[in-house]
């Protein structure tokens, strides 16, 4: 079984991987652009990064699929995980670092700017009203995402439903630490799967 590009890169760190014609600077600006203009969360950025990957024509579909699986399976913000993997393919370890930096720069700076202004006016009725309204929007948006999640990942079987209820109720009703809730639900899922056999 051919070991893929990325795995070899992990082992041979000094070997230049990928198309060295893409300069570090343009790598940075590419990810800077993605980070700055993709609003809507990590999943959206995943789609954008994926199409950028295909656009370069440097990677096989397998490699792209590998990266997406890894970026989503590992905990943490999907966007930065994926940026690391893609950057590594393009310019090795340095590329990985530059790509992550690029993705993170714009959001980081914009939040800093906003935070300063925001924290000064915290608690004023205007801001409170603004944020309460925003919160309604957030609830609507997250509610929709949640609904879709439940439809595709939970309502598919009794094991899934049990796992979902376990995690949700532990965290919400019993004030358990979310990590414990997550593990409980996951372990339940694995255990119930075994019961099949």
């Amino acid at each position, binding site marked *: 079984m051919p070991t893929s590009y990325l795995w070899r890169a992990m082992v041979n760190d000094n070997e230049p991987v990928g198309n060295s014609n893409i300069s570090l600077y343009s790598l940075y600006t590419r990810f800077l652009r993605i980070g700055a203009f993709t*609003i809507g969360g990590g999943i959206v950025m995943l789609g954008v990064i994926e199409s950028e990957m295909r656009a370069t024509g440097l990677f096989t579909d397998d490699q792209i699929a590998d990266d997406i699986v890894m970026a989503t399976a590992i905990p943490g913000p999907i966007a930065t995980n994926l940026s690391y993997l893609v950057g590594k393919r393009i310019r090795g370890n340095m590329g990985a670092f530059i790509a992550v930096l690029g993705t*993170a720069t714009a*959001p980081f700076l914009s939040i*800093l700017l906003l935070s300063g202004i925001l924290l000064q006016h915290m608690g004023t009725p205007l801001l409170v009203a603004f944020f309460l309204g925003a919160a309604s929007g957030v609830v609507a948006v997250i509610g929709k995402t949640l609904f879709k999640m439940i439809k595709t990942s939970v309502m598919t079987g009794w094991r899934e439903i049990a796992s979902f209820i376990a995690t949700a109720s532990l965290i919400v009703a019993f004030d358990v630490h979310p990590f414990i809730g997550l593990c409980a639900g996951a372990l339940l899922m694995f255990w119930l799967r075994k019961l099949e056999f």
Partner: protein
Amino acid sequence: MSVILTLILVFVKVALGSFGGGLAALPFIQYELCITRDWLTLQEFSEVVSLAQMTPGPIAFTSATFVGYKIAGFWGAFFASAALVITPILLLMFILFLIERSSGKLRSNVESFQKAMRPAVAGLVFSAFFTLAKPILPQPVLWGILILCVTLLKLEFCRKYPQLIILFGAFAGLFCKSWLIS
């Protein structure tokens, strides 16, 4: 200084727990910052999330930046964000290393592992949803705005740019300011 160290520790924990994307990080942020330590009130947490949704960037990341800034200024923002980003990458490097050592078969296991986690991750998102919905419940005006937003989300355009909905909700909130119960 110890505040910064605690921030780093907190966001390392948040990073390790957030399986399945940014939304999954929210219950961790809330637990560590609102329940374990009184660093954020529930309302402030809701504000962090709203702000994170309106700005570019992954929601977990922008939440970390904002929280870090609030608690400890620029360096708080820097180290919180750094911890959130670097921790998963270290984990990623380690897992990749293991996969290389064990001949690729582990890769398909990673995928089925991820799929099996999904219902539990949905449980996490549910808890975030529940927490965020709580401040909305006692306010009838907000119910109205919420229903309006839900209706608007049926539009293809709004589904593509959900942050517009949040912005809309924010301005609707401003508009209805006088009907809000304090």
